[in-house]
């Protein structure tokens, strides 16, 4: 049915012989009514969105833009009001036969390496552990509810608290870990876990895994509970080995949820700060990007340089997340599995 016939229907009651111009007017009004309705819906949408957008602009948009801008200046904490625009000098500059700036700083690159090392290792291990824990929690056993609640404790403790706690447990002289390992004859002499360059990154990863495995387990458990039960009965009737069922049925079906969980954890791990800072303070062995930025901003009072570091951190997180989303073809619009 074309528009003229709609118009004709609209003017069916009209007895006027000059139907043609009225027909046009009628279609025009129908359009106006339709767009009037959608205009109202658009207006309502804006009404709901505006307060949030204003809030976000203040708490996220403005600081971000300000940080990016300050990264192009020579601002310091002592002269926060008088600074000048220096272009890309905070990032990279050639002066007197030497390269200066963030991209020429070995410590910055060390912090990038440490961050990536912690992220990749920690997220991989906690994903595997999280799935294992979730599979156990998904099974039926007495006291399941209690175990499900208990397993969440590491995730519920604030990182500052758990980092301090682990700091004491890992203490080279008084720590329970050394005592335990000595008693079990796993090590022959106490190890300064958080100081020894050989063990410190591994220690940080271990504590991070301890803390965040419950998160992965919880998201995986939620995904497991959504799985169609009858498929598993069909697999049992067909006599398919449980391991094959896990890899061929369970894993593909919970993959969308796992991918989202990994995105969350990756975002978190890339900007890891509190755990590293509390366990190892400003140690250069364990420096990560956030700690580097904090050092420049607070300890050295170089607002401009620190802002440049923060901007690079932001770009790194942004870029890696985008790359991951594209690599896994994750659909954030909720249009089903991939």
């Amino acid at each position, binding site marked *: 049915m074309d528009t003229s016939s709609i118009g004709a229907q609209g003017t069916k009651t009209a007895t006027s012989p000059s139907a043609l111009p009225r027909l046009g007017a009628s279609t025009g009004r129908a359009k106006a009514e339709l767009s009037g309705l959608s205009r109202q819906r658009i207006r309502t949408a804006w009404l709901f969105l505006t307060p949030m957008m204003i809030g976000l602009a203040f708490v996220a948009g403005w600081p971000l833009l300000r940080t990016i801008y300050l990264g192009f200046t020579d601002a310091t904490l002592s002269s926060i009001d008088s600074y000048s625009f220096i272009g890309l000098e905070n990032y990279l500059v050639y002066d007197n036969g030497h390269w200066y700036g963030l991209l020429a700083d070995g410590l910055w690159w060390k912090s990038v390496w440490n961050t990536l090392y912690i992220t990749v290792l920690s997220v991989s291990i906690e994903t595997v552990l999280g799935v294992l824990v979730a599979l156990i929690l998904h099974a039926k056993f007495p006291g399941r509810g209690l175990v499900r609640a208990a397993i969440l404790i590491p995730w519920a403790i604030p990182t500052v608290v758990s980092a301090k706690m682990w700091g004491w447990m890992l203490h080279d002289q008084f720590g329970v870990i050394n005592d335990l390992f000595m008693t079990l004859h796993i090590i022959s002499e106490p190890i300064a876990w958080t100081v020894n360059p050989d063990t410190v990154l591994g220690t940080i990863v271990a504590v991070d895994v301890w803390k965040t495995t419950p998160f992965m387990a919880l998201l995986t458990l939620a995904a497991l509970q959504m799985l169609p039960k009858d498929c598993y009965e069909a697999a*049992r009737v067909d006599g398919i080995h449980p391991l094959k069922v896990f890899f061929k049925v369970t894993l593909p079906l919970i993959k969308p949820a796992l991918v989202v969980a990994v995105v969350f954890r990756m975002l978190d791990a890339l900007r890891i700060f509190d755990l590293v800072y509390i366990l190892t303070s400003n140690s250069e062995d364990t420096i990560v990007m956030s700690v580097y930025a904090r050092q420049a901003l607070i300890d050295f009072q170089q607002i401009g340089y620190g802002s440049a570091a923060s901007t690079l951190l932001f770009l790194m997180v942004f870029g890696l997340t985008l790359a991951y989303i594209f690599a896994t073809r994750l659909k954030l619009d909720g249009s089903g599995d991939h």
Partner: protein
Amino acid sequence: MSSIEFVKLDKVYKGLNNFHAVKGVDLSIKDGEFVVFVGPSGCGKSTLLRMIAGLEDISGGDMYFGSRRVNTLAPKERGIGMVFQSYALYPHMSVYDNMAFGLSLEKASSQNIDEKVREVAATLQIEHLLERKPKELSGGQRQRVAIGRAIVRQPNVFLFDEPLSNLDASLRVQMRIEIIKLHQRLKTTSIYVTHDQVEAMTMADKIVVLSQGRIMQVGSPLDIYNSPANTFVAGFMGSPNMNFIQVTANGSQLAAATCDVPRSFEVPFQHQGAATLGIRPEHIELTPQPGALQLECQVSVVEHLGNETLLYLNTDVSDQPLVVAVAGEKSMQIGEKLSVYLPPQCCHLFDANGDAIARLATTKPN
């Protein structure tokens, strides 16, 4: 191929109430038979099927496939193929992979698997769907795939758990016929669970009517229809339901129990005391019959089904309206008075416990 034998089979769900789902079921199913378990929801028919599949533990009694006791055998060792009500297809796999998934572990060569899958797909006319995912299929197509997945493994026993109940009416009839044809071709022992008595009547070699975990009657569809063993089977099988009238029997003379004026008529049964007279709506006549009980009625509801007309009649012999099925179209006014006739050879008589009383003469209902 396999025959199946149940001996005093029991199923108790351990819990607060210790729900007794299946109570002492004895049954033997012949090799190649198509058996339908029918009953209202909660009667234990699905539990029984899942016990055969090995998805539910057996609490008591024995189950034999042929001469092999299978009580403790894992599902895969029983050689069964099962079709679920919800299809239970793997949502992330193509139709092909769904069908091939169960085969790949049997160490069959990939070419062999491919041949089998394509052969079964051709049988079920789903060849063109092999590359699709389940969500891209209609309900009927999914059901075919689910059946295909069961067939492709060439099981000894097929189990169907209400496979057609998610389909619309016309598709259900079509799939029903296809499953029957398939059984005629494959001749595999099949057990089919349904709550739909039409499916039971049309598909079964043998119907098992269950209620509250017990077998009420086992028999061919016509046995069940013509000689229901008790009031439960009589009332459950047949649509519209059989009419029941409370009567008092004195030898072969019956008198309506609730009727003010006792009228008696002679039936081919021998019984003393309270009893229930049953007669199917399609056996009640509107014209005088020799020896028939004449009842004066008033029309309360008329249902026109096109091929037949259902009359709901108020009588003085029962609180329940008497339902009469008349072939073709019949115009009747609400409140209209008429006489109906109950032919004695079409009547069923049940004792106070609801069990059928044996018919005396060899006269069979028509």
